[in-house]
């Protein structure tokens, strides 16, 4: 008995006109599809290792894996005489319905992928996006989670994040903040500047460079207005800002430089002129 490969492959298996060869083609395509899917999914995982959290990385890898498997099945099914045209018509209608329904989902997904690659924000960054200010807790495929400074969990769809103006407060290493300090006209502004510089220099997180800048900004109605501009590490600027102002005010007061109240001197037409006093504890504007 002589073995004939062609004859064997052409042998019907008894279901319609399907032959052994068709079965082998089907199996071969599925096997190749599975191998391709595994390789691609593995590479997706590797490529996104540092860009996505594990849960979302796995989800994306699985989506890619099953899309390739479905593609392989769609290619292989005709070998089993399975007519996909009927499915295509039904699938087209279903696809249209799903397409309309999932429009925003897809939009968020694509925006999320762009956000992950462009990386305007990272987990832990302090941001303002779509009028929401807080720290980024998580960047998911469909949404970004922001914890506002008063501890509120906020979910922002990625499409909104991607199309909004994003302010990232900590993207740069350092940032500047500003105080306005008012002193009396009778006080020595140079001395006030020197004292304020001493206080700023003593704070470890008020940066040495760029150097802090303090100057007389304007001659106001109620006193001389000084401006202090201070640089601090972007991630620590708030703690510097919240302590330095009061330290400066205390140092000025210890040295007889008083921050004056807003005041107004009234001159009455018939009254004898009396010397006004501009002394008083005061107000600091920021």
């Amino acid at each position, binding site marked *: 008995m002589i073995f004939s490969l062609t004859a064997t492959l052409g042998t019907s298996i008894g279901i319609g006109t399907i032959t052994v060869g068709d079965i082998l083609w089907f199996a071969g395509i599925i096997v190749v599809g599975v191998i391709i899917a595994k390789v691609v999914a593995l590479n997706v995982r590797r490529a996104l290792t540092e860009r996505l959290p594990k849960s979302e990385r796995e989800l994306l890898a699985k989506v890619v894996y099953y899309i390739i498997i479905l593609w392989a099945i769609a290619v292989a099914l005709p070998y089993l005489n399975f007519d996909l045209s009927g499915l295509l018509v039904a699938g087209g209608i279903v696809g249209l319905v799903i397409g309309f329904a999932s429009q925003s989902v897809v939009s968020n997904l694509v925006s999320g992928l762009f956000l992950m690659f462009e990386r305007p924000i990272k987990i832990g960054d302090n941001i303002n996006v779509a009028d929401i200010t807080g720290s980024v807790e998580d960047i998911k495929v469909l949404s970004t989670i922001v914890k506002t400074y008063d501890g509120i969990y906020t979910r922002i769809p990625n499409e909104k994040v991607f199309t909004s103006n994003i302010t990232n407060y900590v993207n*740069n*290493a*350092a*940032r*500047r903040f500003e105080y306005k300090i008012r002193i009396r006209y009778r006080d020595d502004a140079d001395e006030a500047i020197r004292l304020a510089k001493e206080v700023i*220099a*003593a704070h*470890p*997180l008020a*940066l*040495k*460079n*760029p150097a802090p800048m303090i100057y007389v900004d304007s001659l106001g109605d109620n006193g001389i207005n000084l401006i202090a501009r201070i*640089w601090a*590490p972007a*991630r*620590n600027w708030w703690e510097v800002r919240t302590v330095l102002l009061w330290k400066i005010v205390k140092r000025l007061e210890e040295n007889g430089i008083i921050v004056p109240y807003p005041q107004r001197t009234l001159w009455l037409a018939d009254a004898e002129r009396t010397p006004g006093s501009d002394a008083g504890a005061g107000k600091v504007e920021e």
Partner: protein
Amino acid sequence: MFGQYTSTFRYESGDFLVEAERIDGLLTYRRKCEGRAFERILAVSEAARVTVNPVEPVNLPKDITDLLQIEFTPIVLEPGAAQTVYLKFPVEIGVFLASEKGIDILDIFGAGAQKYTLYGPPAGGAIARWCRSGVYPRVPPVERFREGVMELSILNTSSEWAHVSCAVFNGVDMKIFYNDDIAAATATMKIINPTIAETGFIDIPLVPGMTRSVELYRARKIRVISRGYLMEWGLS
């Protein structure tokens, strides 16, 4: 104060108090430094050791950067010139607990004021711990627990004159050694062009016989590949 202790110990000098003593059977670690106090009860085996040694000076008052910038009197180097100078750097003292099961950080403290700076522009630069030092031709006298000595070998490999008045180091690379007199590190600075230089540390003691410090990154179990630091925002 620097060294390894297997049971109770006490060191007191000036502003410093570091001790481990048994109170009601509990081993208690205490530290005071310039008015700041720290205390922990230690639940450790008999074999546990307490190690006190200088560590990379980039942790106080907060661990916000790995970089250390030392500013010094400007040095002008002609093309191809090499010069070895000695600088001072701030000392931070690390207290480690070590047993057969591993090592952990117990405390970090240091005397004197700390200051940070920005090396480079706000958009691309980096925050660095800042300190100022004189430039010395030989090992300068130092206050042992406040200042360390860094031997810095500067080599101008460029074909232009170089003006250097600061050096920025990656503190994670720092290899600190100590003996009864000083804490010291040996560093290099290779000037590539008048605005770019490469800095790094050499794993050798300044003086033979010095003991190598336990590094913080080792206690933190951080894998570090010594890569040095590329100063790309200028040398002054």
